[in-house]
Structure formats: C-alpha cells, structure tokens
C-alpha cells in the first residue's frame, strides 16, 4: 500500500518529483510503480531503454534499410508484431527515399531529394504523404518529426529554415536574390570537390547595375546592404518555422521567440552558409 491518498492525489505528488526521485519512487511499492507506469509519468521524460535498430540511407540505392537487433522471445511479445523497417508495403515508386528523422516509433521520409515528405509507422505499416509546403520558399536546413504517443496520436513535422535570405530593397527588387533548394548531402560530390573536381561552391556576386543607377553607387550600396545583412543576429527572433500538423492536415508558419541572449550573428554562420544565387 502506498500513501493513503487517492490515486489522483498521489499522481499530483509524483508529478512534482524530479525525474531522478520519480525513478526511485517507482521502486518503493507496487502502487507507485503501477501509477507511474499507468499514467506514463516517467516514460515521456526518458530515452527508450534500448535501441531497436538502425536505418541506413544510401547514396546509390533508392531505399534505406533497417538493421535491427536479433529479437528475444520476450521483446517480440511486447512489440506485438513484425516491424517493417524497410516499408515494403509502401508502393515502390521509382523514387529516392531517405529517412530524415524518427520519433517514438514513427519515421519521417524524404522522397526524391526534398520533393515530398512522408510519415510512416513501420509497426502498423500505415503511412501518409504530406502535402507540399507552399510557404517554404527558402532553403530548409532540416526536417524534424515530433511525436509523443503518450499524449496524442497526432504528429508534427518541422522544417527548420536555413540562414535568412538577403532582403533586396524594393527599388532593386528585380535583382531578386533567390536561395536554391540544396540537394541532400552527397558523398560523391564532396569527394569530387576535394579532388579538385568540377563541383564548387557558388559565391554571392553583386547584381548587374540597372541603367538608371550609377554602377559604382549601386555596387557600394549593395556591398553595404550585404554587410548589414551579415551583422543581423542569429538565430533571429521570432524564428519562423513551417510546421505540419497531422491534426489539421495543413502547414502553418509558427513563430518561436528566443529565450535569453543573442547567440551569434549571421556572419558567424557564414561557414555553414548555403548557396545564394543572384538572378
């Protein structure tokens, strides 16, 4: 018998414990243990006890493969079925698939180098292709999946934007700076560039001057404008992130406000910069 208080009261008490003490409280008696497990007080706050397997993405093969650990009889009893890590049930489009992220048993796949995103549950072999994010015009630095089966059966996908684009003042708007959607990391290209091969990083270059503006003047203006751009704080606040929610089935832009001091400037992020082209 645990404390002589109702389960809800005891849950309130347990919720106030730091993770550490909660784990110890689980070892006190059966009531505490059942309550902590039944109300999932501990589970959402710690990492899984073991790694089920590893998914490997390939450069020269269309589909990743799951490498799982040999299962003992007890673990297959708890999972309740075969996990199809290679997602053989998904129609085999002639496309390149990559696992971008995973969360609590769900996988986030990228189809054809960022063309589409797909979320699937290898345990139930159910999958959903997300609509394209019309708002995501800039380069995406990362795609992430958020899912917590303890709180909801819905998931969210976050597109983390890369460095902000240089905003061109409206009189010069026809010299629009557009960021290119970069292809996923490719080892071949990296090796080729290190060998002095053909693949090189494009450097930003000043736009050709319009006839109405003095060439020198425009060049100075753009240089100054770019300098200011690189002095902007990073990450910006609010940091706007495109989020897909399976609850609404739509993408939305969600602003996140930084807590605390400015971390750095755009300039410090330059080594991690992506290709900007000037049309």
């Amino acid at each position: 018998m645990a404390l002589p208080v109702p389960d809800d009261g005891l849950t309130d008490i347990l919720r106030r414990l730091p993770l550490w003490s909660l784990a110890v409280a689980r070892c006190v008696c059966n009531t505490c243990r059942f309550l902590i497990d039944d109300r999932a007080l501990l589970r959402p706050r710690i990492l899984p006890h073991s790694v089920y397997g590893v998914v490997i993405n390939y450069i020269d093969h269309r589909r990743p493969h799951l490498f799982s650990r040999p299962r003992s009889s007890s673990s297959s009893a708890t999972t309740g079925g075969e996990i199809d890590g290679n997602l053989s049930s998904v129609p085999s489009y002639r496309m390149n698939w990559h696992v971008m992220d995973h969360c609590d048993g769900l996988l986030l796949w990228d189809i054809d180098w960022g063309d589409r995103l797909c979320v699937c549950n290898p345990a139930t072999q159910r999958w959903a292709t997300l609509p394209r994010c019309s708002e995501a015009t800039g380069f995406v630095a990362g795609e992430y999946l958020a899912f917590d089966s303890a709180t909801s059966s819905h998931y969210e996908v976050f597109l983390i934007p890369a460095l902000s684009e240089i905003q061109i003042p409206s009189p010069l708007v026809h010299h629009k700076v557009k960021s290119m959607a970069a292809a996923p990391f490719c080892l071949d290209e990296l090796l080729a560039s290190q060998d002095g091969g053909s693949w090189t990083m494009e450097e930003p270059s000043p736009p050709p001057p319009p006839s109405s503006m003095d060439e020198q003047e425009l060049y100075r203006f753009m240089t100054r404008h770019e300098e200011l751009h690189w002095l902007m704080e990073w990450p910006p606040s609010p940091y706007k992130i495109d989020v897909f929610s399976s609850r609404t089935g739509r993408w939305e832009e969600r602003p996140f406000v930084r807590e605390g001091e400015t971390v750095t400037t755009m300039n410090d992020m330059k080594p991690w910069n992506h290709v900007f082209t000037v049309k």
Partner: protein
Amino acid sequence: MAAATDDAGDSNEMIRVVSSDGEHFEMPEAAANLSLVLRHMIEDDCADAAGIPLAVVAAKPLAKIVDYCTKHAAKSSGLTIEEAEELKRFDAEFIEVDTDMLYDLLVAADFMGVEGLSKLAVQRTADLIKGKTPEQNRETFGIVNDFTPEEEEEICKENEWAFQITKPPSRLC
C-alpha cells in the same frame, strides 16, 4: 468576487462547521469561502446555526484547515511584499507536520476544495520523497514493500540509472 469577500469580512458573519467526530468550529465567511465545498453550501443557504457537517474530516485536521483559511482570508488581496513573505513563512511552519497529519490534510483539503492548501500539502509530500532511497521512503511513509524478491530485482534493474550516480546531474531535475 473580491467585493463579496470584503462584504463578508465586514459583516463578520461566522460560519460553523462540524467535524466527522462531532466537534464544532467557527470561521469568518471569507475564510470558509476559500473552500469550494463550503462556498457552494453558503451560496445554497445551507450554512445554519447547527453548522455544516463535514463527514470525512476529523477534528484535528479541521482545526488546522480553519487556521489556514482564516489566516489566508485575512490576507487575501492587496498584499504588500512583507505580508506576502509573512504568509509564506506561515505556510512553511503550518505544513511542518508529521506524516499522519500530512495525509489527513491532503485528503481533507482535496475533499473541501481548498486549492492553496492542497498545493502546499502536495509539495510538502513531494519534498519528503525527494532524495531518499526506496527503503527510506518506505520508512518515512510507513509503506509496505509488496514486491516479490524477483520483482524487486527486476524493477531496481530497470531504474538502475537512478541509483548509479550519487548526485543527479542538474539537467535531469
């Protein structure tokens, strides 16, 4: 709501309550209003001279609860910093009770719907659990170890990480 409380305070109307073991207590209406149950009874005109019977609250915890509500009702609004700190000190001393009284307060505050007291008792219990081994917790709260030796070994293994490091890393707490 604040205005109603003030009126009650001004009129000095006393509310009578009766514990499960038949003892009578009195407190100002403003104090009784801190209990959701008593407030509803007062609103429904159930507060008469015979007193509101509280079937599951014994005299000992009820006396404490009357103390708590009276103190908090007197200082319900427009607190200065000093008064807020004094109230905090009162709470800290108030909840320095043995585990039997703590259980009684947990149950009674929950039953009577005294939110502030519920929080205080819950936090106090959590503070008592923190930083103790399972055995020390069983001793403090008089809990019987009802695991079989096999279960105990298994469960301690599952939560081994919580025992392995003597000092918890701050990011985990």
